[in-house]
């Protein structure tokens, strides 16, 4: 009887004196099936929606309509919406970073970078969101750079203006957020190296980041 009672509650007999680890584990288990559901689904969707639809429209414009102007204006509008939403909304909501330009009284412009204080408990959902954010931020300018070269070499020069606009808008956001993330560290090489190594480690062995010692003690599996 007593044994059954103990089995019903998972944390009664887990007594390692490690309260923080316990709370962390409880929080992760508490997400249950919704552990991977992002906290800001709308922001995540729109972060990727405008970028990807700009690229898709640019590539497939010949199929939709034969009008150069319609395609140009549509892609430009999508790129502008994407720039605005990534700069003002999704960066804030998904990773807690923001950057803007401030003009002093004497007319000098100054760039300001803001970062939310990192909370000690980073849930699976927040990390997934951050990963989506950075992947979307990095991959799309690369695609537009590929478009730049393909437009240049195929001599469709009237599209060049659009591709250059796309590259500059997306690269501006990328650069701004990288500077936010860097946190005053000015050596880009060091930051890139540490970022890449962290990504490699996390992809290779995600479990190693948890503290060891609780394996084999899962009383409840959700």
């Amino acid at each position: 009887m007593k044994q059954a009672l103990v089995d019903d509650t998972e944390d009664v007999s887990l007594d390692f004196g490690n309260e923080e680890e316990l709370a962390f584990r409880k929080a992760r288990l508490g997400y249950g099936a919704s552990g991977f559901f992002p906290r800001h689904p709308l922001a995540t969707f729109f972060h990727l929606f405008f970028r990807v639809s700009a690229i898709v429209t640019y590539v497939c414009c010949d199929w939709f309509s034969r009008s150069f102007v319609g395609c140009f204006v549509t892609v430009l509008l999508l790129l502008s919406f994407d720039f605005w939403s990534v700069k003002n909304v999704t960066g804030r909501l998904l990773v807690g970073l923001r950057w803007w330009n401030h003009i002093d009284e004497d007319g000098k412009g100054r760039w300001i970078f803001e970062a939310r204080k990192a909370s000690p408990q980073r849930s699976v959902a927040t990390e997934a969101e951050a990963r989506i954010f950075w992947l979307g931020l990095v991959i799309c300018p690369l695609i537009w750079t590929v478009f730049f070269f393909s437009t240049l070499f195929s001599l469709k020069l009237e599209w060049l203006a659009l591709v250059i606009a796309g590259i500059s808008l997306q690269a501006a956001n990328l650069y701004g957020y990288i500077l936010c993330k860097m946190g005053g560290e000015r050596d880009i090489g060091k930051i890139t190296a540490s970022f890449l190594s962290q990504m490699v480690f996390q992809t290779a062995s995600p479990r190693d980041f948890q503290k060891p010692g609780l394996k084999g003690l899962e009383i409840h599996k959700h």
Partner: protein
Amino acid sequence: FAGLSDISISQDIPVEGEITIPMTSHIREFDSSTLNESVQNTIMRDLKAVGKKFMHVLYPRKSNTLLRDWDLWGPLILCVTLALMLQRSSVDSEKDGGPQFAEVFVIVWFGAVTITLNSKLLGGNISFFQSLCVLGYCILPLTVAMLVCRLVLLAEQGPINFMVRLFVVIVMFTWSIVASTAFLADSQPPNRKALAIYPVFLFYFVISWMILTFTPQ
């Protein structure tokens, strides 16, 4: 030290220098109001800023507060509108105004960047994006002129038609010049004002020329 008593510093040696505090962009880790405001607030704030700038262009007066809060949405909207209106309807629908559309775009943005670089090289005290912002917003009168010209062109063509359009374009061209100099002139050193304003004049002249010589077919 006997000779030192004869030394006197004349009054008119200028002693000047510069004290600058290096403002490195640093990270501020706190939950400021802008980090946590709702999306609707952000949208409304930006829209109101754009609208306020349009009003400032329509009634130009010296105002420093306008320059402080630059944005490039107005210039983008105006450029796209102008380029759309400057399209010719050609017989061949394959290339429907393709080159002209991108041409307008390139002229406007490349021209604005060139003027900005010019004013910075002349020692102007204005930042790159502020100057782009002012030049872009001051295209508003010329966009209005384009609209009026297109409406006038719906009527019968002839010399009177042309005179009306010429008059409208000249008035709007002057308005653009006045509006942009109201904002840009202060940032230049006094003996260089003409050198800085002359490219602006050229820029709006080219756009006015494109508007005036536009015919639908």
